[in-house]
């Protein structure tokens, strides 16, 4: 018997030793002498929902679509300014009319020309109720689209719409080839104008693209681009280390130190547009007590929390983060500061400890991290908080139905425009829909409406800043952190474009 135990122990020890041992990286091929790359693999945590920008609305599909399709406008990843992409220029003849001139040198991958007809076709299809496009709301303000000539289009909106250019820069407003759309299913065989052409799609496994050698800025160095599904992040990181994968994004904060220590990997970090915040359910009567919200905000040590993110979060009280149009620096510390004594005294004074609070959270790693830490801190202040985790689908529905006391919400804000954060998430128009906070405040609504219905960008900034201030005064939400976008790439390569909204482009990636 003793022998067996010794044996078992030896086995365990060898496993532990091996686990702690030094690791090395294996060389991997894939690069040619002229700087071009035969095959470049990106590991994606999930499969694409589909490859048509019209019929999808998720970041995983957007990653592929960004390389196959292009939008009329683009937000510059450094300056944050919106610049033409497939468009050449634009002009507002009045506040409801957008005259857009298009580039003349662009062709779809199927050889058909890119022109005003294609834009009209795409946008009409996107906003047609029969299409049931998940992101039809991007063009909700559009009244009418007219082709002026081959390379000019006129879009009329129902009301002056401030964030319109930001909407047109959204991946789901990318232009598709009308010929191809009529002939085939773009969800499976996409045809756009982008730097890469579609090759094949194996559901659940991979999407393969190849360099578009007719691309107007020159053929990309990557000859074959593979989007491979690797559901476990740990596995993906190991594959990055062994060279089976060249590139991953969205690095988890708890593994960042591991990735940083890999010698063959370059990590890119950049302040992002996403936000993670705590909200009370404003439709519940007890939560309409301003002192309760004050006590919650005072009980949460956001500095301590952000330090747990290992540099992958930006600490700011402001609901509109540093990368969002509408942000002003003075809002960084305009919220209720961490003050555990104040929280305790408010809890004691108002007897909050008698009420059990349900903290609803999605069962994703970063949400659980927030939930665990906040639960402990609220408990410290005297609240009685119980966590309930849910799968993403059930979570979205439950939060939408308002079946929670407090919860954490997030917003990627791909368009990086403040109205696009405040309107869907906190405006009372959407209280039955995307406004999961159930917040309703007339003064706030007016400010958000004003920010949407003017196209004067200076005024918009002012309205958004005021609306932001109002939320903080009211402790309507407690901002946990603003995201940091991250990517890790094999250090044989360079030229990655990483945008604050988490999008990235590989068209300029080449061998060092």
């Amino acid at each position, binding site marked *: 018997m003793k022998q067996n135990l010794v044996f078992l122990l030896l086995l365990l020890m060898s496993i532990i030793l091996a686990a702690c041992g030094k690791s090395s990286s294996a060389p991997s091929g894939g690069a040619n002498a002229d700087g071009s790359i035969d095959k470049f693999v990106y590991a994606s945590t999930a499969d694409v929902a589909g490859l048509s920008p019209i019929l999808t609305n998720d970041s995983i599909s957007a990653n592929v679509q960004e390389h196959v399709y292009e939008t009329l406008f683009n937000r510059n990843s450094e300056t944050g300014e919106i610049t033409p992409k497939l468009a050449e220029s634009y002009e507002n003849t009045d506040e409801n009319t957008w005259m857009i001139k298009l580039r003349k040198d662009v062709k779809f991958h199927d050889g058909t020309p890119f022109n005003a007809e294609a834009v009209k076709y795409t946008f009409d299809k996107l906003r047609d109720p029969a299409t049931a496009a998940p992101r039809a709301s991007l063009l909700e303000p559009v009244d009418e689209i007219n082709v002026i000539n081959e390379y000019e289009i006129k879009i009329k909106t129902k009301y002056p719409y401030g964030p319109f250019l930001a909407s047109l820069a959204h991946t789901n407003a990318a232009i598709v080839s009308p010929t191809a759309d009529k002939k085939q299913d773009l969800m499976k065989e996409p045809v756009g104008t982008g730097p890469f052409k579609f090759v094949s799609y194996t559901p659940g496994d991979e999407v393969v693209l190849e360099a578009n050698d007719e691309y107007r800025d020159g053929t990309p160095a990557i000859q074959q681009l593979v989007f491979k599904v690797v559901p476990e992040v*740990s596995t993906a990181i190991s594959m990055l280390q062994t060279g089976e994968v060249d590139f991953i994004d969205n690095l988890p904060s708890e593994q960042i130190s591991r990735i940083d220590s890999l010698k063959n990997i370059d990590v890119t970090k950049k302040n992002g547009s996403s936000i993670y915040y705590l909200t009370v359910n404003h439709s519940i009567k007890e939560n309409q007590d301003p002192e309760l919200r004050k006590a919650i905000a005072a009980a949460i040590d956001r500095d301590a929390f952000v330090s747990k993110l290992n540099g992958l979060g930006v600490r700011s009280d402001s609901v509109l983060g540093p990368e969002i149009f509408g942000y002003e620096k003075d809002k960084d510390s305009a919220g209720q500061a961490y003050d555990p004594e104040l929280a305790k005294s408010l809890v004691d004074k108002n007897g909050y400890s008698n009420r059990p609070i349900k903290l609803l959270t999605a069962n994703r790693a970063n949400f659980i991290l927030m939930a665990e830490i906040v639960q402990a801190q609220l408990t410290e202040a005297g609240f009685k908080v119980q966590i309930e985790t849910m799968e993403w689908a059930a979570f979205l529905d439950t939060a939408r139905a308002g079946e929670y006391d407090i919860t954490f919400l997030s917003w990627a804000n791909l368009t990086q425009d403040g109205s696009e954060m405040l309107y869907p998430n906190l405006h009372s128009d959407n209280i039955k829909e995307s406004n999961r906070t159930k917040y309703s405040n007339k003064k706030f609504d007016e400010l958000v409406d004003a920010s949407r219905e003017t196209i004067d960008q200076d005024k918009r900034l002012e309205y958004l800043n005021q609306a932001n201030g109002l939320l903080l005064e009211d402790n309507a939400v407690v901002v946990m952190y603003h995201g940091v976008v991250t990517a890790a790439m094999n250090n044989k390569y360079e030229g990655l474009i990483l945008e604050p909204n988490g999008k990235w482009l590989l068209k300029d990636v080449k061998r060092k």
Partner: protein
Amino acid sequence: MTTLSNMEEQVTKPKKMESNFISLTKRLLKNKLAVIGLLIIIVQILMAIFAPMVTWHDPIKQNLAQSELPIFSEGHWLGTDNYGRDVWSRIVYGVRISLLVAISSVSLGLVGGLILGLLAGYYKKLDGFLMRIVDLLFAFPGTLLAMLIIAMLGASLVTVTIAISVWSIPACARIVRGSALSIKEKEYIMAMRSLGASDFRIIFKHILPNSFAPIIVFATMRMATAILSTASLSYLGLGAQPPSPEWGAMIAQGQAFMWTSPHLTIVPGIAIMLTVFAFNVVGDGLRDALDPNMDIH
């Protein structure tokens, strides 16, 4: 009626329960592995009961400044997790969860399995129908069944308990039905029936006690499966709710730190393995001690 009770005495009395138990224990104690398993289980039960006395920290109390301490750190001999919670305390309180879920799910499963099995084994008319239900449950992949139940009822340890008990029903039902069928055909049962004994009486006084041996073995082995399943479901994020110190959830959480703090994964893994191992060897030992020819699979 006198004849009936006499008969009952004749068939039950000669096997004295106490002496049976003693000889069973003797046989069990000869099996070295089973003894080790038994010791592990006893230690765990003691740990579960006296958890506050053998730990020095609150298992859910965070200390963000002292997170990810390695093994043999001062004050935390098994280190701390990424929230600075004491791993030893979490392991000890985790025993409570594992044992509680396992015991309740196995008992529930037994009740369900007994009812189905006895009815199917005793009443021929019900047999076909009930056994089809059992087949249905059998053909359903276990993890998936649990996932569906959890999708319906929400993730919690209670749901996990229900899911695992449903999952134990078919196997238990088959065993009980098997022994019910074989005993039913015994001459003395036939005789008693002709003497007018009620079905209820026959089932509960004769068939049930005679199914006892395979059931106890099944239950012990099932404890092992239940503990493993609870951990797997929690690992998938479908079971224990944070911050509860469930072992599978601890592994899931620790896995992200596997390269920097491997003990967060390895320690709860060993805890699960030891517990499951203990129940398996005791189950094995019990089977050999009760009846070496018993076939429960």
